[in-house]
Each structure stands twice: as structure tokens, then as C-alpha cells.
């Protein structure tokens, strides 16, 4: 990327719960403050704020909480969870260009205690910028939840390659094993077996059982992006943003993604992968850990293939061979993912990517030089400085 080199210099989060007991603005402010403390900067110095179009807190509210003196840059990104890694791409672009110096990306929500994305017609899901046409084209047919949209989109892939729900269960078991060792995870000390997975109820038959679905969570996460030069003088080892991009190909949409032709592939993840490899000169062989958006388990398999970690149709075999575990070829979602840690709309997975680069994960992968963080419609490669 042109311009100044950029890095994630601070990460912050609240506790992850099912009932935070406080406002979403407070969660956001606490997460941002924690990210500033992590980096060792004063919140007043923040000059850029980025969040999702779906985030319910107002920039003005955050400014008032944090005492931010003079904001130079704000933007909001569409596409639900597709905004997660896109915040990093846009923060990086803003800092690289000189439009801002210290950009905070945040997402905070009471997405269990106040409203529930997993229930039919959840508030906000269909706001402009949600990236899904499901309100118009799915709801009257009884496909009324993200799980149903994702299952309908995933089944052609599964049938084409003989992927069964049991295959998906192996991913869930791996991620819950990671969560079991992560004190921040909702499912800390609660691993599952494949039999547990197979005994969990169908959410959408024959694709998704309960343990294939992300949680609904209360909590907040914030990430602080600045220049590599500035980050080097701050408290934590910088996680350099080696490459970052979005990819929204023609006729692709978020979750209810049926209109692009071949549903056995994930064009948005392929587009993200192509640009990341081109920007960085790296390839899948250079990545030692990956955080892949896991609202629902099939999305992880399709990303593994889109990024070239597994051949088409072979992600299930890659998982069954133990390659996503510590000591495997590519530890994935080492915090437990959105299934195991919490569903903070993907932002908690970026924080875990930073911890892997720092060598600070509770499930630390060995020899980490580069970490991929992906929400399919956006991705970033983080690396050591």
C-alpha cells in the first residue's frame, strides 16, 4: 500500500457476557479506553473513529465520553460483520494517507440482552448498509434468521464436496477447545466433544446445529491504528498492517448470498485473498495463524479454500487432520472464535490476531510471522515489525 506504514498499536475489550448491565455507549467507551491504555496513549489524542453502519452508538457520544479534542476522520462501514476487518483496512488507509494519526475502530453491543440477531426480524438487521436483501426476498418464505440464510447459501457447497454436519462439528470442537483455555471466552473451561455437537439440536436442518452457530453476546472491542513509527514508541509490540483490503464482487451480498452463480465457492473471500497476496507478495504458505469469520461453521471451510490453505472441497479433510489445532499447519480462531469466545461482530477475532503477532495469546501459535484476519468481504495480513 502507498503512503505511511501502519500498525495496530492497541487492543481493548470489555468482558464478554450475555447481560452487560450497562449501555452500549458505555461498552464502546470502555473498550476504546482499554485500547488506549494498552497502547499507552491519551484518549484525547484520538483523531479518527470508525465503526459499522449497524453500531448503535454515536460518534458524538464517544467523543463526549473520551474527551476527544478534535476528530479529523470518521466513517461507517456497511455489511454487518463484513465491516469488521474493513475497519482496519480503512483505518490503515486513513493513517497511510495522512488523513489521521490515531484511528480507533470500535464495535460494542448488547446483542443478547437488548436485542437478538439470531431471532426473526431482529432490530437493525435490515437497515440500509446491512448488505442483505433478505428482508425483501427471504422473510415471506420463512427464512427469517441469519442461520437460515447462511444454511441455504452453504448447502450447495457441502453437497458438492460431500461435507456433512459431522465434518462441521470437527471445527466446532477445535474452536471450543481453544475457548476452553481462554479466560476471556464465554465458554472458558467448557470444551465439547463431537458427540456433544451431534447431539445439539438442529437450527437449520441439515446444515446447522446449535453448536455450528456463533453466540449472541454483549460486549465491546476497540482497535487502535497508527503509523508503524508511532507504534514503535508505544507500550506494545506493533502488529504491522502488511496488507488490508475489502472485496465485494458483483451480485454478492452478505449472508443471503445466492445470486452470484456458483455457490460452491466464496467469490468475496477469493477477491480478498487475491488482493492481499498481490499487495503483500505473500501467499498462504507465509501465514502461521488465521482468524476467519465464523458466524456459522461452513463459512470457515469456504474461507480456508478461498485463501488456498486447502484445495477446493478439502477443507473438511484439512480440519479432520488436525491442521487447525496448535501444532497443526494453521491454527485458526485460537480465541475460540465467534462460536467460542463471543460474537462481537468479528472485532474480537482481529484482537486475537494482534495477540498472535505479539506472542500474547492464551493459545499461542509457534513461529508467528504473519497472521491472516478475514471476514471474507475484507481481510488483513498482520505481521511483526
Amino acid at each position: 500500500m502507498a503512503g505511511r506504514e501502519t500498525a495496530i498499536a492497541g487492543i481493548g475489550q470489555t468482558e464478554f457476557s450475555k447481560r452487560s448491565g450497562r449501555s452500549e455507549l458505555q461498552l464502546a467507551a470502555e473498550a476504546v479506553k482499554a485500547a488506549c491504555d494498552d497502547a499507552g496513549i491519551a484518549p484525547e489524542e484520538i483523531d479518527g473513529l470508525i465503526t459499522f453502519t449497524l453500531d448503535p452508538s454515536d460518534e458524538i457520544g464517544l467523543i463526549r465520553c473520551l474527551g476527544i479534542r478534535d476528530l479529523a476522520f470518521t466513517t461507517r462501514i456497511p455489511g454487518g460483520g463484513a465491516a469488521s476487518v474493513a475497519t482496519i483496512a480503512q483505518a490503515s488507509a486513513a493513517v497511510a494517507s495522512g488523513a489521521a494519526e490515531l484511528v480507533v475502530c470500535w464495535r460494542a453491543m448488547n446483542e443478547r440482552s437488548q436485542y437478538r440477531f439470531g431471532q426473526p426480524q431482529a432490530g437493525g438487521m435490515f437497515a440500509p448498509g446491512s448488505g442483505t436483501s433478505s428482508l425483501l426476498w427471504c422473510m415471506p418464505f420463512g427464512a427469517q434468521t441469519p442461520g437460515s440464510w447462511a444454511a441455504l447459501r452453504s448447502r450447495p457447497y457441502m453437497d458438492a464436496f460431500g461435507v456433512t454436519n459431522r465434518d462441521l462439528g470437527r471445527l466446532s470442537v477445535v474452536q471450543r477447545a481453544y475457548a476452553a483455555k481462554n479466560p476471556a471466552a464465554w465458554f472458558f473451561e467448557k470444551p465439547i466433544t463431537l458427540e456433544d455437537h451431534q447431539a445439539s439440536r438442529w437450527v437449520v436442518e441439515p446444515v446447522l446445529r446449535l453448536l455450528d452457530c456463533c453466540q449472541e453476546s454483549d460486549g465491546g472491542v476497540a482497535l487502535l491504528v497508527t503509523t508503524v513509527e508511532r507504534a514503535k514508541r508505544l507500550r506494545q509490540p506493533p502488529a504491522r498492517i502488511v496488507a488490508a483490503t475489502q472485496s465485494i464482487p458483483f451480485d454478492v451480498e452478505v449472508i443471503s448470498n445466492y445470486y452470484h452463480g456458483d455457490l460452491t465457492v466464496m467469490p468475496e473471500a477469493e477477491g480478498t485473498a487475491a488482493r492481499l497476496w498481490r499487495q503483500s507478495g505473500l501467499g498462504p504458505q507465509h501465514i502461521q495463524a488465521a482468524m476467519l469469520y465464523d458466524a456459522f461453521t461452513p463459512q470457515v471451510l469456504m474461507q480456508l479454500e478461498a485463501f488456498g490453505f486447502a484445495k477446493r472441497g478439502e477443507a473438511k479433510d484439512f480440519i479432520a487432520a488436525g491442521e487447525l489445532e496448535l501444532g497443526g499447519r494453521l491454527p485458526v480462531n485460537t480465541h475460540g472464535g465467534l462460536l467460542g469466545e463471543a460474537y462481537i461482530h468479528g472485532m474480537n477475532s482481529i484482537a486475537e490476531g494482534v495477540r498472535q503477532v505479539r506472542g500474547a495469546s492464551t493459545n499461542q501459535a509457534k513461529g508467528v510471522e504473519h497472521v491472516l484476519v478475514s471476514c471474507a468481504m475484507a481481510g488483513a495480513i498482520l505481521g511483526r515489525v
Partner: protein
Amino acid sequence: MVTATRPDPVETPDTAFFWAGAARGELVGLACADCGDLSHPPRPMCPRCHSTRRVERRLSGRGRVLTWIFPRHPAPIGFGEAPIVALIDLDEGIRLVSNLVDVEAGALLAGMPVEVTFAPTAGGKAVPVFRPVR
């Protein structure tokens, strides 16, 4: 007489024609008046030639089942028993989300030929659904 409970479709300026067609018992798509390109979901500009001259086109109502699912939990609002939600590839080359009706779950096959029929909604409208070609 059974009272319909299915949710009404949400209509927008660019999609009202589709539901008006369904209410008449017709499956209609939106095509470009200049280049003939048919696209779904419908849109006010042709993505191929960028014309805004749009015309409704009556569709055959015939297609094939690409895939299907059964939403179990939470139960969909407005349905007595779990609907079969399917993707239908129409003969005209566009894809619809819809329901499969008048068919046993065990008889479903990918690629199965289907034809359109219409199901009433709670507010007196209708949506296109599909059944096996007899």
C-alpha cells in the same frame, strides 16, 4: 377456510411489480427494455447497458431445485409447520428464494423440475412458491 398466516412481502418502489404479479397469479421478472437482460433481485438500472428503461417480463414459472433447507429453531414466524426453503433456478436463468410445496421431504432431489404456484399471505397478498412438475 384456512386463514393465511404467512408474512406479507415488503414492497419497495423497485419491487412492487413482482408482488403485484404474484397477487394476479403471475410470476414476473424485470428486464431491460434496451438489451433484454433479465436480473434478480430486480433493480432500476440494467447492470449490462445501464438503461433505466425497464419492462416487466412474464416468466415461465418453470425451473429446477438448486438446494433446500428446513429452518427448525427459532420457528419461522407465520408458519404452522417448518416450511421447506429452497433456491430455485428458473429456466430464464435467474434464481429465487422460495418454498417447495406439495412434496414430501423424502422425495426432494437437487435438480428436480418444479413449477410455480402461489401461496396467500396474512394481509391478502400472495407469494410465488414451487411444486414438483407433475
